[in-house]
């Protein structure tokens, strides 16, 4: 039982590691957010559930923690992405298009 839990924790911490690596490697803040939100969410969830296997009586509290992370992580990422775009941080050179920027400029012209 503890062996299954430890393997789940190992997979989770690998996802945490890859998320952090993505934050370091990817070229602009929006791409970093993608790595920083998805990989770390699933990573922390797997890590916490894996520890729940070692102490089954802790599971209710751990599940509350998991649900909290699952609900709040996308919200904080969305708020940060919105703030980044509002603050005028550019997308990387490799980006294809930015519809939001086009629409904002159009709105300003109409005003």
């Amino acid at each position, binding site marked *: 039982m503890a062996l299954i839990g430890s393997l789940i924790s190992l997979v989770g911490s690998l*996802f945490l590691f*890859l*998320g952090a*690596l*993505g934050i370091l*490697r*990817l*070229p*602009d803040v*929006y*791409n970093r*957010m*993608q*790595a920083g*939100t*998805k*990989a770390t*969410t*699933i*990573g922390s969830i797997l890590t916490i559930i894996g520890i729940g296997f070692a102490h089954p009586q802790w599971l*209710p*509290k751990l599940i*509350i923690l998991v649900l909290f992370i699952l*609900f709040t992580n*996308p*919200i904080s*990422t*969305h708020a940060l*992405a*919105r703030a980044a*775009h509002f603050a005028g941080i550019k*997308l*990387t050179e*490799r*980006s*294809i*298009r*930015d*519809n*939001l*920027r086009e*629409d904002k400029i159009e709105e300003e012209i109409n005003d």
Partner: protein
Amino acid sequence: MRRVKAFVLSYIILIGLWMIVGGTQPDEMIVGAITAFIISLVFAPRFALLGSIRLSPKALFATIMFIIVFSVELVKGAIDVAGRVISPSLPINPGIVKVRTRLQSDVGRIALANAITMTPGTMTVETNGEFFYIHWIDIKSEDIDAATAAIVTIFERHLEVMFG
């Protein structure tokens, strides 16, 4: 009716949370029951999520389907982004595209925006009425309808039944 439903739901959730985090001693339960009652009374009517949940069997089925689809997409999303990070050439093709949703209720749109953030390669940057601006790490189509079909439709079907 809507407010009563919101009150009852919020009371049940708060009491459940209290019992798990705080314990189930009798004196603790009395304090928890009173606190949960006051919080539900003050905040539940303004908390739109609880008021607009539908409690029919059909909506319950849609909720279960949504949770299953969401979990699968969550795992797929993490593996996808991890794979992109590991590969030495960084196979990304990013940009912000615009999509349109059919959902009418605010709560449905919030749930959709957050679900999109957790799915493979997409992240909601800004919402404006029925239009969402989505950062897509690997753009497959720049057309609004094709992008909508690729990103939004998979969740929209279930959320439409859940929240309308």
